[in-house]
């Protein structure tokens, strides 16, 4: 028996992402979770610079476009001043890791009571597909035309594992939008992360593996298959830390 499935009101308008981009799925999952938790009128989004900035065209919620990479620091300020509001940073991997590794790491280190959603598409999507910290070894981008050489650039960063192993976050997970099953699991991760913030447990983070068909030079479905076949073996999906209701 079909249940009604409707795009949440706060995101129900056309957006300017490329065809097959995972951003549209991820922001829909966040908004569905907010509606289910009854928080859709009680949320502030510090948004990063990059493709995530395209949210401005579709998302109707309080939001702030932060300086490049600094959403972790801005979210800290917003949350400390408005402790009753839900604060969700929405950033890409280039923004959160390559440019803003200091702010992102420090927010996690301080165990700020915020939720960080990072969209990992293994490159800087908006500016034309340059290498980011998460670019895979051998992957061709516009700044690594012969493939990424990890002996020169270092190896792709697994930030959720770093946070989970070194700091004391409330909830850390990595999801993917590469199949309907993975999308459903990712929604569960996002909901747990938001619930952790509502319970004032501390820092919660979900990294989502997302396709970038245009910059990977693939069709959308091939990009999804690349995530399943090549990326998930290096970026394993699942939950890394869960406090389960314990307040910080």
């Amino acid at each position, binding site marked *: *028996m*079909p*249940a*009604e*499935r*409707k*795009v949440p009101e706060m*995101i*129900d*308008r*056309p*957006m300017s*992402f*490329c*065809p*097959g*981009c*995972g*951003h*549209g*799925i991820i922001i*829909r999952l966040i908004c569905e979770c907010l509606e289910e938790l009854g928080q859709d009128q009680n949320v502030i989004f510090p948004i990063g610079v990059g493709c995530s900035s395209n949210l401005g065209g579709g998302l109707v919620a309080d939001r702030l476009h932060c300086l490049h990479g600094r959403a972790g620091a801005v979210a800290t300020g917003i949350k400390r001043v408005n402790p009753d509001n839900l604060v969700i940073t929405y950033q890409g991997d280039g923004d959160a890791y390559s440019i803003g590794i200091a702010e992102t790491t420090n927010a996690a280190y301080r165990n700020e009571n915020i939720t960080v959603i990072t969209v990992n598409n293994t490159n800087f999507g908006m500016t034309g597909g340059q290498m980011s910290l998460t670019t895979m070894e051998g992957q061709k981008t516009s700044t690594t035309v012969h493939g990424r050489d990890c002996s020169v650039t270092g190896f792709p960063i697994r930030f959720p594992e770093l946070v989970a192993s070194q700091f004391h976050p409330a909830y850390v997970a990595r999801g993917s939008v590469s*199949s*309907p099953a993975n*999308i*459903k699991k990712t929604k569960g991760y996002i909901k747990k992360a938001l619930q952790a913030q509502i319970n004032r447990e501390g820092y919660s983070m979900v990294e989502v593996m997302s396709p970038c*068909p245009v910059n990977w030079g693939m*069709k*959308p*479905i091939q990009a*999804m298959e690349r995530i399943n076949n090549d990326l998930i073996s290096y970026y394993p999906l699942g939950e890394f830390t869960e406090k389960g209701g314990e307040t910080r």
Partner: protein
Amino acid sequence: MKVTVKSARCKECGLCYSFCPKGAISFSQDTNASGYHPVMVDDEKCIGCGTCYITCPDGVFHVLKSERGVL
């Protein structure tokens, strides 16, 4: 009808087409305002599972509620 389609939003990425378990989705011959061929849903084949809604990045689909036992 089990699913409504907002043709104007479709970007012809083909994710719903690839993931639909019943092969109920096809592309229209017409073009929308953005120049894409929007998707169409074959109501005979559709089972209302919502996979198209789950995989669509652009909010094209709205799966309608149906009465119990009526598909």
